[in-house]
């Protein structure tokens, strides 16, 4: 039962975040690149003010899978690196924490670009 409730929260929060994104698209006609940038900045902000972990505790993937989670990792990395390394952490923290995701996106994009061709839309 508890597990079901956890998953329900994941679904509801994740769906809600995505729906906000769609609402932004249809009301302001902004492109997907701007949507992604906006949500990354939201994530950075939530982590900076310390709210992200509260949401993450009950929403899990619902807030970590949306690109907000990516923004939060960037900020989290920067904050903890500043704590451990001082000034250098400002520069190294963000990308260190998100290196896995960025590298994965680059590597898979490269491999699949070599394998597949673009498809015409129908």
């Amino acid at each position, binding site marked *: 039962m508890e597990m079901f409730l956890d998953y329900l929260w994941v679904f509801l929060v994740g769906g809600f975040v995505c729906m906000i994104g769609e609402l932004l698209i249809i009301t302001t*006609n902004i492109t*997907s690149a701007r949507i992604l940038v906006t949500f990354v900045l939201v994530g950075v902000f939530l982590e900076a003010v310390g709210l992200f972990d509260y949401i993450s505790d009950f929403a899990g993937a619902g807030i970590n899978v949306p690109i907000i989670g990516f923004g939060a990792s960037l900020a989290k990395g920067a904050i903890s690196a500043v704590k451990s390394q001082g000034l250098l952490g400002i520069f190294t923290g963000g990308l260190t924490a998100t290196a896995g995701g960025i590298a994965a996106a680059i590597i898979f994009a490269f491999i699949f670009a070599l394998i597949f061709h*673009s498809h*015409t*839309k129908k």
Partner: protein
Amino acid sequence: MKYDTVKFKRQPKIIGAYSIVGPKEGEGNFKDYFDYIMKNDLFGEKTFEKAERKMIETAITGAIQKAKLKVSDINILVAGDLLNQIISSSYAARAFDFPYLGVYGACSTMAESIAVASTLVDGGYFENVVCCTASHFSTAERQYRFPLELGNQRPPASQWTVTGAGSCVLSQKGKGPRVTMATFGKVIDWGITDVNNMGAAMAPSAMETLLAHFENTKTTPDDYDLIATGDLGKLGSEILIDLMEDKGIKLGLNYSDCGQMYFRRDQKTLCGASGCGCAATVFNSYIMKKLQDGQYKRVLFMPTGALLSTTATQQGESVPGVCHAIVVESYED
């Protein structure tokens, strides 16, 4: 006179016309009129750009064949397309042993090339001139918008670029519908900045050309069996009707828009078709056949073009439009 409407004395004849389209277009409303429907968008080539070039070559060869001429009979080629530096036309022209004039009027290119070709023929300088225009959904999409695989939604006012090429042969001799008049259009910009709303950006230019044409030729909409704009789409053609009504001219049932009629409703193209190929393939298939049958006696063909580029748009420029009109009349026996 503000505009120059040219009345052709020798009235160049359109003695051959050919259209080639992609598979989606081949399922649309004009499917029975096209000469050739490709089985897939690549047309046996490696890239979409190469496919577009091959479509132009096929259309030109087809039009020459249908005119019952040989390639060596052709004096000059007037062609254009949507890609940067109109590469599709220029590269296709490599395959032919005659001179080439590249023209660019975005989606109005078909009328522009016929108007230019008609003056060349009418002046008596060239005997046989080929016109050709093409566009390709996949090449236009990545030049003007986003990669094909990007998972985004198309805004409700957007239109679908036609994959297709149309070509026709104009001649001093022979039999066929005659080009009798041409009205060249000014570039008109009423400050529309939404690049997804081409119809609204181009409608004012259609209005200006139409008004000038009626004034210069002393004709009214009732003098034509068909008044066809190119790719204003559903929204743009409604705007044009409104704009003309404001000026006291009512466009009736003889007005239609190639882009609006192009696809069936269930093909989900939102506001209809667009692109050079839209007006070109409809003109060189449906309209030409109706003129040859004598069902249409007099057609005013006036595709519009949006003269934008991504660079200009990103610098905050609005979208200028241009509209060229030609009058084609069926031949009298």
